[in-house]
């Protein structure tokens, strides 16, 4: 019995320490920002690696999600004779929830895992140590640009996701299922509010972006420097990031629905 308690206490303290270390890492990354002139190209490189290279999966997923949403939505709405509400249905679902959440989870899977693996590998092959011994701060040069690259990419990807999902719904709803185009857009416009829906969705995506890239960077930085260690750090990064995004989504939605 005592043994179990000791074990519980120890793992609790150990987890607390880990949390503290990741918190300190975030603090150092955010408050020792890259030297703008020297390291700006690094940030741009990372926006490319994390954002631009994720475009394919984001656009394809959003197109299909929009199309499925329209398909399912139409068949259910038609039973109530409310098929002209398809526009609002799709736009509100995507802008408020699906856009930020699905983008964040896809981002965690594609860019987050890549960042974790990269940093973990650099740690395991002693590249980070070499940098330190050459008097170059690896936090500034390697970690920080990846963090800011993720922070910048996430909201941009979310906006693109929202647009292509709604367009996909338009294709299915109007072009295929025969909802009137004018009704589709005008009902949407009267139901969707820019500040409450679109902007809130983008705010959510910024919060998710911080969470996902922070977890990715921390898991890579604190990975056990072996091949197995990197593998498990990568999977952990994706799992933790996804769960955190879903949890944060609930909290943010509650805050936003209650109008702050």
């Amino acid at each position: 019995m005592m043994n179990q308690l000791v074990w519980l206490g120890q793992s609790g303290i150990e987890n607390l320490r880990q949390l503290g270390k990741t918190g300190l890492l975030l603090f150092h990354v955010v408050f020792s920002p890259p030297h703008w002139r020297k390291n700006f190209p690094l940030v741009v490189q990372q926006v490319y690696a994390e954002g631009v290279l994720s475009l394919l999966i984001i656009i394809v997923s959003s197109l299909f999600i929009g199309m499925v949403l329209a398909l399912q939505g139409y068949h259910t709405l038609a039973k109530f004779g409310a098929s002209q509400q398809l526009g609002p249905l799709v736009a509100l679902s995507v802008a408020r929830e699906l856009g930020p959440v699905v983008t964040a989870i896809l981002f965690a899977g594609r860019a987050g895992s890549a960042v974790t693996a990269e940093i973990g590998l650099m740690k395991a092959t002693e590249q980070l140590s070499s940098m330190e011994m050459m008097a170059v701060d690896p936090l500034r040069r390697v970690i920080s640009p990846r963090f800011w690259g993720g922070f910048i990419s996430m909201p941009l990807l979310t906006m693109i996701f929202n647009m292509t999902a709604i367009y996909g719904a338009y294709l299915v709803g109007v072009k295929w299922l025969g909802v009137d185009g004018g009704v589709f857009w005008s009902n949407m416009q009267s139901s969707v509010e820019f500040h409450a829906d679109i902007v809130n969705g983008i705010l959510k995506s910024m919060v998710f972006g911080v969470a996902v890239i922070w977890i990715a960077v921390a898991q890579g930085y604190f990975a056990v420097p072996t091949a197995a260690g990197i593998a498990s750090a990568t999977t952990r990064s994706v799992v933790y990031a996804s769960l955190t995004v879903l949890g944060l989504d609930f909290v943010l939605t509650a805050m936003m629905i209650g109008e702050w």
Partner: protein
Amino acid sequence: MLPQRYIETLVGLFLLFAILALTVLAFKVSGLTNLFPAKTYLVTAEFDEIGGLKVRSAVKIGGVQVGEVSKIALDPVTYRAVVTLAIDDRYNDIPDDSSAGIFTSGLLGDNYIAITPMYNKTFLKNGSQIEMTRSAMVLEKLIGQFLYKIGNSGNDSNANSNANSNEKGDKHANQ
């Protein structure tokens, strides 16, 4: 890694694409007509019952939106609802004897305030009050009234039909 200038170009395109998406979302999806809140002036109106009226509900004249509700408060003395309307500065010639009523869009839709313009030569300005108001119709009260009426006329018609059927019965009996 591609050469730096290709990367920068691609990132620039990425940013452009995202801004385009944002523009589409703003104007086509949410119907944002102007980014900056229009200049408005505030007018108050008191109602006995506002029903489902909310802050930011529309204020319309003849069906066209001219402003929105900016504040709803309760007068502690008269216990009437004091609604503050923010009317777009462009519509600065609403006669100050106009009336304001709370209506429902559609049958079960949101409530909005409709202003019916009258004939005075002086106009509403910041701080004016609309005197003539018509409260919202609350569905439950209507149904209650309707049932009450049905109940009453039911009693009368029951009495009538009883008398009628008695006569008929007599007729039959007499034949």
